[in-house]
């Protein structure tokens, strides 16, 4: 896996991705199982109801982009999926397991299969890059040998194009590098599902494109199903197999990228202009 050179590469990739979207729609007749299934989800904080009756599915192997304005409840939605927040009503099933009824141990086992890329990167400040990458590996694969761990770290760092950052502290990394290391920390445990919370927010366009490409390459290489929360249309165009738009805490539209691009709805047009 090599790092992208720039926006043109992304366009090429985008075209590739568009073909992939078609592939998926063509093979839609084959029943694709849902790895995440959200039904009638409601979540509020005090008097403010953030999510009102949200239902959606993430199918196996797809990149599902959840679009929406700031404050539309996108981040709350993915935090409910890994039970960082508990829903007020509704059910969330991940890999066939009802998240809200799992005990702490079972939830821990399920979380091992889910990778979560935080908006801020959430690298541990007191640890260098190597220690950050070792942290989940030591906990999830308890009997792993140091040699295997070093090989795995070298592999994921190469995948994100930062092999020389091994002993750097998070404070020495730029925003884009932090996101990439954070992505490396997430994929190091071979997750089945990836949740991306605003992966390109706060990054320049070139770095945003690099992260979008990386998301596609992770999907391809690690065969993950990804749920990408964003309000960055370029990122959505580059990564989405399918899109869901949230508005006022509910699903406003669900469909392929073409449907969104060609929509006459003023709200959707305001995003895709």
């Amino acid at each position, binding site marked *: 896996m090599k790092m992208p050179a720039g926006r043109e590469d992304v366009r090429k990739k985008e075209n590739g991705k568009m073909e992939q979207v078609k592939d998926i729609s063509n093979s839609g007749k084959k029943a694709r199982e849902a790895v995440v299934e959200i039904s009638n989800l409601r979540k509020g904080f005090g008097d403010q109801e953030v999510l009102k009756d949200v239902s959606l599915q993430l199918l196996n192997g797809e990149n599902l982009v959840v679009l929406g304005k700031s404050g539309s409840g996108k981040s709350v939605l993915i935090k409910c999926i890994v039970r*960082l927040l508990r829903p007020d009503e509704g059910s969330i099933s991940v890999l066939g397991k009802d998240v809200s009824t799992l005990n702490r141990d079972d939830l821990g086992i399920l979380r091992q299969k889910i990778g*979560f890329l*935080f*908006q801020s990167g*959430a690298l*541990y400040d007191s640890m260098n890059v190597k220690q950050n990458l070792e942290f*989940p590996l030591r*906990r*999830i694969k308890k009997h792993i040998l140091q040699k295997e761990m070093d090989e795995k770290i070298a592999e994921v760092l190469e995948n994100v194009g930062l092999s020389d950052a091994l002993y750097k502290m998070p404070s020495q990394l730029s925003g884009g590098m932090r996101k990439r290391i954070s992505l490396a920390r997430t994929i190091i445990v071979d997750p089945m599902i990836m949740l991306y919370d605003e992966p390109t927010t706060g990054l320049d366009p070139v770095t945003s494109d690099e992260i979008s490409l990386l998301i596609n390459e992770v999907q391809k290489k690690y065969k993950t199903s990804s749920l990408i929360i964003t309000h960055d249309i370029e990122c959505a165009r580059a990564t989405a197999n399918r899109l869901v738009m949230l508005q006022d805490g509910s699903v406003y539209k669900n469909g392929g990228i073409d449907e969104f691009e060609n929509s006459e709805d003023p709200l959707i047009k305001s995003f895709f202009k």
Partner: protein
Amino acid sequence: MRSINPVVKVIPNIRNATIKLSEKTVDGTRNATVFLEEVATFIIFMVRTIKETFSRDFEFKEFLRQCFQIGYKSLPLISITGAIMGLVLTIQSRPILDNFGAVTLLPGMVAISLIREIGPVITALICAGKIGSGMGAELGSMKVSEQIDAMEVSSTNPMRFLVVTRVWAATLMLPLLVLYADAWGIMGSWMGANIKGDVTFVLFFSQAFKFFQLIDFLPAVIKTFFFGAVIGLVGCYKGYTAGRGTESVGIAANSAVVLASLLVIIVDMIAVQITDMLA
């Protein structure tokens, strides 16, 4: 001109006073509710910390790292403070004892004061400032930057990794730091005694511990474990329950110092009462 009935005149005043009183009652009740909620949350946090301590997979490596951070990295500050405590106490006490012709009692008096009360309390208050604020700020910033959430989703129990290790490290390191501060205090006292006199360290040391009994030493050491636990718990609690904004990091650090210092004084008062009853 018709005169207004005085009762009618007074009615608006009574009504205003009643409204103000009811508003103050509501405010008072709200404050009391918030306070009781805070106390209840702290007790739940404390119980959870104890429960997580005895669960499997104790994070021993992180515990050792915290012992190093809390213990070893506090040594310079504790050395200077301890030495100055002993020096000042000696210089201040000498003229008074001199008036009664009891200068020979100076080493013993200073040693007992230092070891029984001043050493533990001053060291604990300094640690409340250094360690308590450090924990509050570190965990608070980890909360704000979603590092605690990241730990949670990578199948690590943040209570066990972050809180239990810090609380136990503080509990076990504080008694050692207090003993270390006491040693420096006696050194400082010896230096103070030599400003206006000439006494060898061996003689000073033997005089210092001439009147010393186990009852002077034991309660002082035991209470320092509680001081450490209080500092660790309050620091972690304030950081762990910090709000989401960056402002809350400062609030967490500040309130950790204030609450930990206050609780150290309260624990000291209780410890002194218990020691007095037992003696």
